[in-house]
């Protein structure tokens, strides 16, 4: 899930400066789970904007705002309202903003800050577990990701920065990921792996922008 936080209302207002008519999109997936762009948040945003003298031409919570097909389909259905708007405010992740902006050829304003790919511990508490590094090593590390959960993204065991209660030097609230890995590998009798020299990470797999096209699709497209 893309963990996100709504931008300050003042920032949204300043982005909408000079625009009178605004349409608001939300998303039923991540934005709803993070309470940034579900039905409730869209209704609240509509009210706040109207209080500030904006005209809200409509609101719509997309099922999944990062799907180009879905966005285009809803865009057609909502054409009239969208055409009557100066711009669109997207209360969903940055991918949604661009999927909507590019797909519907509208001015799309970001209404949230996208933070990380995360796990929803419970409503209101979100933690990062994976940063989509392109080559998963969870198999070796006992299912705990050092790329993401070690503050330095170390590949070869802990730095000297952990405290006796197992916390990281960077944030005393966070567990040292490498101590967690150490404990788990010890339990599973696999500590030998930690003694070996691991290659540095291959960052060629994370050079942006990343794309993935299935091989058979590529061939079909080429034909």
């Amino acid at each position, binding site marked *: 899930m893309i963990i996100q936080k709504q931008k300050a209302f003042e920032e949204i207002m300043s982005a909408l400066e000079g625009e009178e008519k605004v349409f608001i999109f939300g998303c039923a997936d991540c934005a709803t789970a993070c309470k940034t762009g579900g039905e409730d948040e869209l209704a609240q945003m509509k009210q706040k904007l109207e209080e500030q003298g904006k005209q809200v031409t409509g609101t719509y919570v997309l099922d999944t705002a990062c799907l180009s097909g879905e966005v285009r389909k809803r865009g057609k259905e909502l054409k009239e309202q969208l055409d009557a708007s100066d711009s669109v405010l997207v209360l969903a992740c940055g991918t949604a903003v661009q999927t909507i902006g590019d797909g519907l050829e509208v001015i799309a304003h970001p209404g949230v800050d996208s933070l990380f790919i995360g796990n929803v511990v419970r409503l209101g508490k979100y933690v990062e577990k994976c940063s989509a590094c392109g080559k998963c090593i969870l198999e070796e590390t006992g299912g705990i990701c050092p790329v993401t959960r070690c503050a330095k993204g170390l590949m070869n*065991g802990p730095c000297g920065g952990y405290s006796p209660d197992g916390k990281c030097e960077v944030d005393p609230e966070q567990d040292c990921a490498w101590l967690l890995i150490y404990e788990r590998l010890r339990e599973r009798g696999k500590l030998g792996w930690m003694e070996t020299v691991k290659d540095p990470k291959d960052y060629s797999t994370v050079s942006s922008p990343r794309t993935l096209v299935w091989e058979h699709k590529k061939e079909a497209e080429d034909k």
Partner: protein
Amino acid sequence: MSNFSEALQSGKFVVTGEIGPPKGTNVEQMFEEAEHLRGKVAAINVTDIQSSVMRVSSLAVCIKLREMGLEPVLQMVCRDRNRLALQSDLLGAAIWGIENVLCLTGDHVSLGDHKEAKGVFDLDSVTLLKAANTLASGKDMAGNDLDGTPSFFTGAVVSPASEPVEPQIIKMKAKVEAGAKFFQTQAVYDPQQMEDFMKKVSGFGVPVLAGIVLLKSAGMAKFMNSNVAGVQVPDALIEEMASVGKKERKKKSVEIAARLIKQMKDCCNGVHIMPLGWDSLVPKLLDQAGL
């Protein structure tokens, strides 16, 4: 071969010192501190943007030290440079005749004075050791041939007072495999702990220099206990520091450090003294420690 590596190979008890570059171009005081170490230590470490607080470059200071006829240990951390820059600086060090390199991960940027900076950590201490030794074999990390091969004497750090210590020892093994030829430890204040640690790592066959940080006051000791990972100053030493007036502190500090060195002398291969600006006390300290 560096004098430092020869000294270690000879099996003698080896002493190294340390200086920290300043923030700004006034380097006189730092080089004065280094002068106090002349003839007393086998080599002088130069810290690399220590504690993530921006300062003069370690490499530049090492070059100066060599010009002064002092032998440097170039400290290199992985926080600020990617593998291109680290290898490039290693070659740069080599053309100035700098062979001793201490490879560290480095503190996180959030601990320093440029918290908005991007922490790099493209390599880590282990892969930096390996990179330096790969260069010394005539190739770069990508496998390309070098036109002119550097030689390095690479070392690393370990924290005997970390709890738990086992992950440190496991990583130490990886560092040896990656080419660590010596270790300098984080500050240790408990000789028994050092002895126990040395028993566990003697099998690696790599010399270990125990870290000595001069205690400046009881307050500093308490600060380190709660803020510096892997450092534990026992209460007895804190009380000992607190028992003397301000004027007597330097004397007491030297007395404690000399005692620690004597107690640890038989279990390790040398000491790495980090005077934190009190370099002028090092000759007296070594005297009292009987070195």
